[in-house]
């Protein structure tokens, strides 16, 4: 601390240097990685650099990307969610079955599916806050419970012949000759919405504070229990939107869907520079993380690399990302 005798001038609010602050942003690494990957693949495949291919990448990552928004929220609170893929699969089946059976109008079916997902999120949140239990264990248990429920409720049958509103997000529109699905647009909008909520509202500041230290947050008057419950519930609702995106993309209700999406969403979050220890990270980073995975899969595929190597490279990237996070934390201590 430098205790000055004269009151500090306006330089106090100005900041050290914009460049240094920009270099300190956690999204810089992921952004650089994404751009490098794009350069690499455009040099190695003439089909990579096109609007249509990018549109395809976004379509491929939108479901996991949306799940990863919820995952980001939870990881920012120093939690983790292993059940998000399962919750999404169940939400998808609920929407598809209710709509296909004609029990309720399609839009109502969608609403019920969203609410069911939010409710599972809320149960996770309750168990984490009220008892309290470690998020890892709670969501691991929930993963199994919801997986089983999905198979019981669907009787292991894929639901087909879905009415139009359920697949509407799979419809496309054109931007300058490139066709884009409404689902891709919705995913991007969701990322922007949560980027806004996290950086521009008190709620967002509180999520970070909670992830830094629940005790500090509590002592500053934040109702940490209610906040945590809210985060898990909102995450659940986002998984519901992911369910709708999934149904619209595949055109069916698939009880087998989303089985590795929990880990894939964590991968996107970690690649995006968000710390698994909570309190540090940006949801835009998660979008970059999801795109990195998508671009690698797509680019390697275009280069004719077998898909098992895509998995291998994703794994290496995750370990790299966590290493960078750990090392930068040590430096800050």
């Amino acid at each position, binding site marked *: 601390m430098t205790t000055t005798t004269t*009151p500090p001038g306006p330089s106090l609010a100005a900041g050290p240097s914009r460049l240094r602050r920009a270099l300190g942003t956690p999204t810089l690494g992921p952004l650089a990685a994404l751009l490098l990957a794009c350069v690499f693949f455009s040099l190695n495949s003439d089909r990579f650099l096109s609007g249509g291919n990018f549109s395809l990448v976004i379509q491929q990552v939108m479901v996991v990307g949306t799940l990863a928004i919820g995952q980001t929220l939870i990881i920012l609170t120093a939690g983790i969610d292993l059940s998000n893929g399962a919750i999404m699969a169940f939400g998808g089946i609920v929407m598809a079955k209710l709509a296909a059976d004609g029990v309720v109008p399609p839009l109502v079916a969608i609403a019920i599916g969203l609410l069911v997902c939010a409710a599972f999120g809320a149960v996770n949140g309750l168990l984490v806050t009220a008892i309290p239990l470690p998020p890892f264990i709670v969501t691991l248990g929930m993963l199994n419970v919801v997986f089983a429920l999905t198979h019981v409720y669907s009787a292991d049958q894929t639901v087909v012949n879905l009415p139009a509103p359920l697949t509407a997000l799979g419809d496309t529109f054109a931007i300058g000759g490139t066709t884009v699905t409404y689902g891709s647009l919705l995913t991007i909008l969701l990322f922007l919405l949560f980027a806004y909520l996290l950086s521009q509202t008190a709620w967002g500041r509180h999520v970070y504070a909670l992830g830094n*230290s629940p005790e500090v947050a509590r002592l500053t008057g*934040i109702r940490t229990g209610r906040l945590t419950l809210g985060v898990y519930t909102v995450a659940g609702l986002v998984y519901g939107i992911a369910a709708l995106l999934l149904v619209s993309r595949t055109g069916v209700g698939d009880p087998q869907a989303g089985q590795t999406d929990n880990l894939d969403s964590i991968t996107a979050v970690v690649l995006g520079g968000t710390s698994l220890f909570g309190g540090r990270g940006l949801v835009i980073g998660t979008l970059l993380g999801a795109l990195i995975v998508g671009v690698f899969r797509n680019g390697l595929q275009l280069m004719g690399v077998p898909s098992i190597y895509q998995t291998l490279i994703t794994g290496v990237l995750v370990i790299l990302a966590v290493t960078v996070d750990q090392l930068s934390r040590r430096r800050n201590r």
Partner: protein
Amino acid sequence: MTDTPVVPVLQARGLVKRYGQVTALDGADFDLMPGEVLAVIGDNGAGKTTLIKALTGAVQPDEGEIILEGAPVRFRDPLDARRHGIETVYQDLAVAASLDIASNMFLGRELRRRGLLGTVFRMLDHKRMRKESARHMAELKIGLPSLTQAVETLSGGQRQGVAVARAVAWAEHVVVMDEPTAALGVKESGQVLDMIRRVRDRGLPVILISHNMPHVFEIADRIHVQRLGRRVAQIRPGDHDMAEVVAIMTGALRVESGKDAVITDQDAARAIGLS
């Protein structure tokens, strides 16, 4: 002392707090006068932490009453105490590490933009919060490189500066500092002590809980000695030396009224150099 018309800012009478078999507070009294730095000292287990927790709403006493500015109060939780104008700076540098200084200053009490942006879109007024933070920092003469810097990039003393500035900014009646120098080096401790003086000079009374006798003697106007769950003495640093205060703390010396110190345990008194 009884015939002075000055109303204590914060008072406690006969506080009792039991944890099962253990009695942490056994009829403790407490008085904080306007504009003073009151040090609260006591051996481990003397009940000073419980006393402070009761005064700041973190613990609810089983018996006794707390009086703020002459009116009895009952704090449900720390937030309630804060609403009553009692702010606490905790020893473990209670700031959110990854948030910037302005966000920390306004954590839990954020300012929103005026108009629709604030009411409908709940948008924070970062600019106004930074400006206000800069003003509070300047008032306490805390120099910091940048308000947009994450608190984790600051030194321990700077972080404590942020915590103190936040407490002072919001405290209407009392600032409580729980071992504010425990985690700091010599130079930074000195800076925090300077800060405490400036807080007092602004007319805000400070309760300082500290194990560090030199710090207590350097800065306190009065010392509250807690022992076995009660207040056993209220003294002025000028009237007793450090050895005597330690003796009071450990029970070797007893203060009856005013300045008369009575040795109650000759062996203990000899052991610490009094006779």
